């Protein structure tokens, strides 16, 4: 990859005070300084990126971790020194590069006139220096209502395709869209007030009442998130923290718009027939995609089991992310029956899901950072093809929405079983059966 892991947006912002503008500039500078740290970690030639020494077997790492659990800590770099695997905490390994980030955050803490936000910035700076990331996450979730938003540090694990354990550095900076955040929160209350029966209830984390949502006018993505270009996140990732403190769902307006314009809309136009396409406008599909993102993140709330990451290991994100979207669509089906969503909305959401899956699969070689989503997309499309919910005729697909909804129901039963009590081998068997790309490339 030659391009920098940095994306900036020219977002339309609400009115900010002079003080807020000054603080925002400092946060943007701090965010940019994450880029060189992430560049030290990323390496798409190896499934373990630069988190582990290259050429070392997975079994060798597992063996070393039995003696020293820090080897498989989310926040250490593993190196081979004197023929022995050694774990170095991130805050020590990248101390030199972290110093200017910390300085910017501390200056912003001095400048801001909001005491709570200043405290939060200090806690985030401290975490970068000493590894107290959980405290920083909890603090970040508790600062509200406030207009400026920064999340910075090692967070997501998608670059560790060996174990799905090691976190990569990233930062986002934005300004909260208060009006739309309130709307999303109301939507969240309606959805999460419904109790959903789950398999293995004793193993399920229950934090429905502690979920918060926000929509960001995004200004900057740096590090891993600039590569993955996520349109929504649900933090913290640690289920134990989630159970205790709840979770915070953030949707990124500008990134969603960018991804829609550059990826989804062109893919939609490429894969569907002209007769079918004209039934849906760009606005329908863009809204469908945004609803899907919100439903996906909310659906995660129903899918958190205590030990699913441990059981499914590196295949956990493939199953978990696919299940969240499928569950999100099922939840929308229920909203339709209560007149809270319309048929057109549900159709647009399903189309957005299929279009996303095609976009991943057809461009998979350009997206090594999104490998788990690409496999999930292939599983979805092959499942829908097998059930006849989507058909190919001369490279054009024509979806049958009713069959598709039934297929989502069936797929969710399978994914739910794997997530709640399955082993890695179950996830592997599902991927082996439905994860092939060969069948899908004829859409080209």
């Amino acid at each position, binding site marked *: 990859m030659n391009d920098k892991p940095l994306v900036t947006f020219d977002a339309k912002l609400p009115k900010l005070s002079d003080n807020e503008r000054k603080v925002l500039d400092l946060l943007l500078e701090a965010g940019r300084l994450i880029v060189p740290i992430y560049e030290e970690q990323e390496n798409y030639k190896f499934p373990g990126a630069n988190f582990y020494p290259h050429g070392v077997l997975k079994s060798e790492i597992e063996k070393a971790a039995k003696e020293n659990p820090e080897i498989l800590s989310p926040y250490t770099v593993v190196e081979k020194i004197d023929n022995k695997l050694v774990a170095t905490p991130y805050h020590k390994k990248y101390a030199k590069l972290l110093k200017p980030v910390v300085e910017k955050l501390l200056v912003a803490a001095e400048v801001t006139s909001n005491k709570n936000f200043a405290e939060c910035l200090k806690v985030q700076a401290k975490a970068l220096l000493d590894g107290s990331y959980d405290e920083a996450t909890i603090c970040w979730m508790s600062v509200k209502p406030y207009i400026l938003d920064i999340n910075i540090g090692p967070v997501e694990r998608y670059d560790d395709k060996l174990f799905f354990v090691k976190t990569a550095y990233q930062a986002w900076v934005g300004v909260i869209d208060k009006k739309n955040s309130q709307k999303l929160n109301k939507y969240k209350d309606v959805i999460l007030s419904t109790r959903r*029966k789950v398999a293995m209830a004793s193993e399920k984390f229950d934090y429905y009442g502690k979920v918060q949502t926000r929509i960001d006018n995004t200004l900057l993505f740096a590090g891993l998130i600039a590569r993955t270009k996520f349109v929504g996140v649900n933090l913290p990732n640690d289920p134990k923290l989630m159970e205790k403190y709840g979770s915070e769902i953030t949707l990124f307006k500008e990134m969603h718009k960018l991804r829609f314009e550059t990826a989804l809309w062109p893919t939609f136009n490429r894969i569907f027939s002209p007769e079918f396409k004209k039934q849906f406008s760009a606005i329908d599909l863009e809204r469908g995609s945004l609803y899907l993102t919100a439903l996906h993140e909310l659906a995660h709330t129903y899918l958190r089991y205590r030990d699913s990451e441990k059981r499914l290991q590196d295949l956990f994100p493939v199953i978990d992310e696919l299940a969240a979207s499928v569950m999100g669509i099922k939840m929308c*089906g*229920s909203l339709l*029956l209560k007149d809270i969503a319309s*048929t057109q909305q549900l159709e647009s959401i399903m189309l957005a899901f299929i279009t996303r899956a095609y976009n991943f699969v057809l461009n998979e070689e350009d997206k090594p950072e999104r490998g788990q989503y690409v496999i999930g997309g292939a599983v979805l499309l092959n499942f829908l093809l097998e059930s006849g919910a989507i058909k190919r005729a001369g490279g054009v697909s024509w979806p049958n929405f009713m069959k598709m909804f039934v297929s989502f129901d069936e797929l969710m039963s399978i994914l739910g079983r794997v997530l709640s009590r399955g082993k890695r081998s179950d996830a592997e068997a599902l991927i082996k059966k439905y994860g092939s790309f060969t069948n899908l490339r004829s859409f080209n």
Partner: protein
Amino acid sequence: MVHKVYLTSQGLEEARVELSFLKTSKRAQVSDRIQRAREFGDVVENAEYDAALDEQTLVENRIIYLEDVLKNAKVIATDPNNDFVVIGSTVKVEMDGEVDILTIVGRVEANPAKKKISNESPLGSALLGAKKGEVVEVATPIVRYKCKILEIK
């Protein structure tokens, strides 16, 4: 054809109060806002004036809507029968693994945030007349679920 609008007595009262507020207070407030915006200067390039006119349209449309609702209102019993589901019943249902408690109300009073669904919604219309323990089918052209009535209040 006159379309009956089903309302609880509380819903009817709320509609009356809202209509009265819009006619006696809100109209005057919006009128003042328009007047103030005119004083800012040229109405052609005046965003506040445009916003005030938009608000006036919304208020007038809402007044027409509420007058129509009150004209065609049919008040439903406030003490619904617990033997089967009627408009006004609060029902505990299980559908697609979801357990939910919902109140069936007329379209005007539907409020998802308060768990009030319209009698005209696919679920609301399927539930009407059903008894405790009964399983009804709820269907739209896309979604088809079986729904079990666990409790009627």
